[in-house]
């Protein structure tokens, strides 16, 4: 991928039990498999079909994407701060490749 995913947390430090909001944007064509090119041939589907977020190794949120997700998918969700650790966001492409983004959360 040309550019790494952009990830933003609404707070870098949280108290245990606080709700933290995550916003993430990743560059991807999300080709739906419905469009045709100039020769009238269907452009094959190529989307990110799975998104997962883990915090300190534990999965907090995931989503299954279909072709009806807009290009350069944006995702926003929340999690409950439990412990300090890496926030890892993973997108899985139809071709099996992965886009991984990471940030940190400090929990006191």
């Amino acid at each position, binding site marked *: 991928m040309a550019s790494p995913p952009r990830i933003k947390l609404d707070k870098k430090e949280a108290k245990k039990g606080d*709700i*933290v909001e995550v916003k993430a944007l990743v560059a991807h064509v999300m080709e*739906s498999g*419905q*469009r*045709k090119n100039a020769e009238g041939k269907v452009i094959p589907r190529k989307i990110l079909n799975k998104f997962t977020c883990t*915090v300190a190794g*534990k*999965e*907090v*949120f*995931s*989503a*299954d*994407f*279909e*072709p*009806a*997700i*807009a*290009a350069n*998918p*944006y*995702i*926003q*969700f*929340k*999690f*409950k701060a*439990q412990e300090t650790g890496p926030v890892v966001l993973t997108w899985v492409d139809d071709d099996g490749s992965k886009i991984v983004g990471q940030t940190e959360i400090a929990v006191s």
Partner: protein
Amino acid sequence: MRVLLNRRQALAIGAGAVAVLNGAVSPAFAKNDVDELIGKFTGGKKPAEGKIKLDLPEIAENGNTVPMTVSVESPMTEQSYVSEVMVVTDGNPRAGVVTFHFSPASGVAEANTRIRLASTQNVIAVAKMNDGSLFTAAKQVKVTIGGCGG
């Protein structure tokens, strides 16, 4: 075999389609695999109305990217939480949009993403709780420019 419709028949079919939107589901008029997907998700049970807030614009000028927020009322504790929320549409070539998976670690059952809508249509969310109960909500979005290319 090609079926030709005169104006009166075409209007009758149009009226039928409106009846479908009003909840009287008739498979003959189902445009895509929306009923099938919902059936698979719910296991044939009928979801109750409510608990879900589906936030979408009334009118989307560009169907290529329509912001959508889904939130479900729930304490999100080990005893009671939302496990999955499926979002489908009845007017895209394929009904599936996204399925969100939540857990008590999510804290709040809320997610936002941007979706594609091919035309004016209904967006339907179905939520599954950890105890198996089901809730649904729907919202119509008017689309000025369709979002599936081609």
